[in-house]
């Protein structure tokens, strides 16, 4: 695995040089979220209290010990999942910036078997020949995207249009907000093109749209809604997409 894909930052402080004896558990758990130990699968540790983060680590070690004998690591995955859920759970009295009383609903105009289905994800995938080049940087590394996450959050999103017949080897992914290793190993974990194609062949849907869409979801909400979205909707309509499957990452 190339460096940087776990989210480790280029030029980060080697662990040996950190004065471990002076570091509090609070600092340690926070260091996984855009700090000296950045690991985007575990940035939720920052959202836990120090006591809860300590309990998570205790349970993790307990399960590692148990797995030495039974060899089944699925319990480790369950633990990570459960604590991610806990970490992102909003506090009861937390203010909610993006909250709506009700939402729109458009009914299907025809049977799904006659519908063209489109895919749009916030995974940060793009075609190798069409790098969105954030801030003018072509070939930006994942490590740099992590470093510049604050800038991504202020800028408008760029929609990457990906032909639906793109080969896996032609796809790239870059996103400073999540652990991209899964999406890099198999784009279908966030852009389920193959499943949709199989369901089209089986007759469950009429077909897959000719192009798929991805953007870096860490972006300015105001500029997404005001500047980008109207053009995106127009594009979906021009491509006669009847149903849109959305995947946030």
């Amino acid at each position, binding site marked *: 695995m190339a460096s940087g894909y776990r989210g480790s930052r280029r030029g980060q402080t080697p662990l040996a040089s950190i004065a471990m004896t002076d570091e509090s558990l609070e600092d340690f758990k926070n260091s996984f979220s855009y700090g000296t130990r950045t690991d*985007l*699968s575990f940035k939720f540790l920052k959202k836990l209290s120090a006591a809860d983060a300590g309990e998570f680590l205790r349970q993790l070690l307990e399960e590692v010990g148990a797995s030495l004998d039974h060899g*089944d690591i*699925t319990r480790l*995955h*369950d633990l990570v*999942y459960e604590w*991610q*859920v806990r*970490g*992102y*759970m*909003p506090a009861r009295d937390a203010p909610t910036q993006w*909250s*709506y009383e*009700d*939402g*729109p*609903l*458009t*009914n*299907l105009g025809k049977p*799904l078997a006659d519908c063209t289905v489109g895919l749009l994800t*916030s995974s940060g995938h793009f075609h190798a020949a069409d790098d969105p080049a954030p801030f003018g940087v072509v070939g930006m590394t994942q490590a740099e995207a992590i470093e510049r996450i604050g800038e991504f959050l202020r800028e408008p999103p760029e929609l990457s249009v990906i032909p639906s017949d793109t080969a896996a080897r032609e796809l790239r992914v870059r996103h400073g*907000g*999540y*652990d*991209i*290793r*899964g*999406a890099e*190993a*198999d784009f*279908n*974990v*966030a852009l*389920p093109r*193959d*499943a949709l194609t*199989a*369901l089209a062949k089986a007759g*469950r849907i009429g077909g897959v749209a000719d192009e798929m869409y991805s953007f870096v*979801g*860490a*972006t300015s*909400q105001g500029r*997404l*809604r005001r500047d980008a979205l109207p053009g*995106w*909707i127009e594009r*979906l*309509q021009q491509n006669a997409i*009847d*149903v*849109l*499957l*959305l*995947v*946030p*990452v």
Partner: protein
Amino acid sequence: MCHVSVGHVARGVEAAGIPTVSVFVRAFRHVAQQMALPRTVITRHPMGRPLGAPGDAATHRRVVTAALDLVEAATAPGALSELEAPYRTRGAATGS
């Protein structure tokens, strides 16, 4: 923030007349609910792998099928379908 972004896309596209369905991991279910998204499938998967593990085509297909089923079944906004399957089946070596 990704989930809020996609929430805004879902609301905008739906309001423009195209039915949408979103696949959220459980950790961000509250975002789908707070944003009153039209239709959402919730998976018990870790962040970054909403459809399932790399190479687990059977799970990817189950999740997409559940999403399509929800497009047909939903009669009011805020429709939620929570899938119970864990990320990996105990003892099974799936994935890449």
